[in-house]
């Protein structure tokens, strides 16, 4: 495990606007094409640090993340952040990074600038934040490069930097390094660890067991749209409590 000492509190809980944690999902369901993708799911996340959501492909991990972020609406159940339902103000305190980097047809710096503009950040502050974000991601020398010309790893770093520039309290990532080479993966993971050290609550979806071991403080194991296990990471990896989790960790195909 990489060295990570999460703070005792997250920014989410100390911010003037009120605590964002705990994140509570109650009887959450999502149906599509007649299929129950998420099935009456209950979950509570209230610890700082990095939470990893794991499971075999098709378990519903990406859908779960999108439900939590508010990108799709559940067909049943509710999502509560610090006891409140998701609204515009709460949404502004979140940011998400997708599996495939989504960048506009403009320069790297302009992409961050645009995102800050959407959030209503004052022009005078934008320049500083863009600079900081690019530096954090190691992309200062690529500031004026068309973002879509960057390599896969650089693009994802840029997406992460963009998300961090928004100064979110919660950062969610959906398989952020699934298509990246090991060097880029390491760079992303280091950024995540650094972010959680600064108090940002992070929720990562991954199917990469090694990555989960490196990053997770606690693990949520999902299968067929239901929570099978939710434990502290060390316990989960050493002593999984369910057969499916055991089989998954051993590298088998879990149907």
């Amino acid at each position: 495990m990489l060295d990570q000492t999460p703070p005792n509190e997250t920014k989410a809980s100390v911010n003037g606007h009120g605590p964002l944690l705990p994140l509570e999902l109650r009887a959450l369901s999502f149906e599509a094409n007649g299929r129950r993708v998420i099935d009456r799911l209950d979950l509570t996340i209230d610890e700082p640090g990095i939470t990893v959501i794991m499971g075999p492909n098709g378990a519903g991990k990406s859908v779960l993340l999108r439900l939590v972020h508010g990108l799709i609406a559940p067909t049943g159940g509710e999502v509560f952040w610090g006891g409140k339902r998701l609204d515009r103000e709460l949404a502004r305190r979140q940011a998400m990074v997708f599996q495939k980097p989504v960048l506009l047809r403009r320069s790297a710096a302009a992409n961050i600038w645009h995102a800050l503009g959407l959030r209503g950040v004052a022009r005078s502050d934008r320049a500083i934040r863009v600079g900081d974000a690019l530096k954090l991601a190691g992309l200062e020398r690529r500031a004026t490069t068309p973002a879509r010309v960057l390599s896969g790893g650089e693009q994802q770093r840029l997406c992460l930097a963009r998300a961090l520039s928004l100064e979110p309290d919660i950062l969610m990532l959906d398989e952020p390094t699934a298509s990246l080479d090991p060097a880029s993966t390491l760079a992303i993971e280091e950024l995540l660890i650094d972010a959680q050290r600064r108090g940002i609550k992070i929720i990562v979806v991954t199917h990469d067991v090694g990555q989960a071991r490196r990053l997770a403080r606690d693990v949520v194991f999902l299968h067929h749209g239901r929570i099978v296990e939710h434990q502290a990471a060390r316990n989960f990896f050493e002593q999984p409590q369910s057969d499916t989790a055991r089989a998954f960790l051993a590298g088998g195909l879990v149907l």
Partner: protein
Amino acid sequence: MTLHLDRRTLVGFSLALVIGLGVAVPPAAQAEDKFIVVQSTTSTQNSGLFEHILPKFKEKTGIDVRVVAVGTGQALNNAEKGDGDVVLVHSKPDEDKFVAGGWGVKRHDVMYNDFIIVGPGSDPARIAGLKHAAEGFKKIAAAEAPFASRGDDSGTNKAELKLWQDAGIDPKPASGQWYLETGSGMGATLNTAVGKQAYTLTDRGSWLSFANKDDFKVLVEGDPKLFNQYGVILVNPAKHPNVKAKEGQTFIDWLTGPEGQAAIASYKIDGQQLFFPNAGPPS
């Protein structure tokens, strides 16, 4: 090294282009210039008469004359809708009806020329030199030789139909076979006639100024029934308040007065006069 469109530059440039276009390229006649719209015929326009006389009028009065050239029928129709200040056409019965209906103020004779029958050098219907136009039409129908008609309710078209009537023949059943109705102006119809080696009735002015004659000749002329009188009428401002009655009347007065009449007479192509002024008291 990389060059991408800076948003401000692009927007600024586009704006400048549009504004520049709207302002810098001067439209020919601004609304401040005085102008009238004259609904007239394609034959008059194709003859080139307007290019000759209108500048003289503009010089004298400062009024710009904008000619919309369509067929006589359409010209009178447009005037009934108020889309014009003056009409200058050549079909007296329709002009009289126009005034009688209250759409026009008064009809004045302006000028005349004549119609002629032109046709291919080979003259398959053998009409060359005939003294009566209706006789020529009879022979064309008998030979089923191709004939191009305006078919557009114009003054020329009306004159042509009258001649068919005089000849006791109805050509319409043969429409699409030897009787070709172009529905077009005189120039386009002449083009079609030449292209199809067809006979056609045309006013002399259009014929003289037509530049694509091939081997066509004037075959029948001089019949009094081929007389072609032009009339000018002021559109009735009582029916359409937007009509520029004052400027319109100025134009009519000039056209029927000594200067306008002289201008008409002075228009020649290859030394031949096209229109003969004959304004008298209003008829």
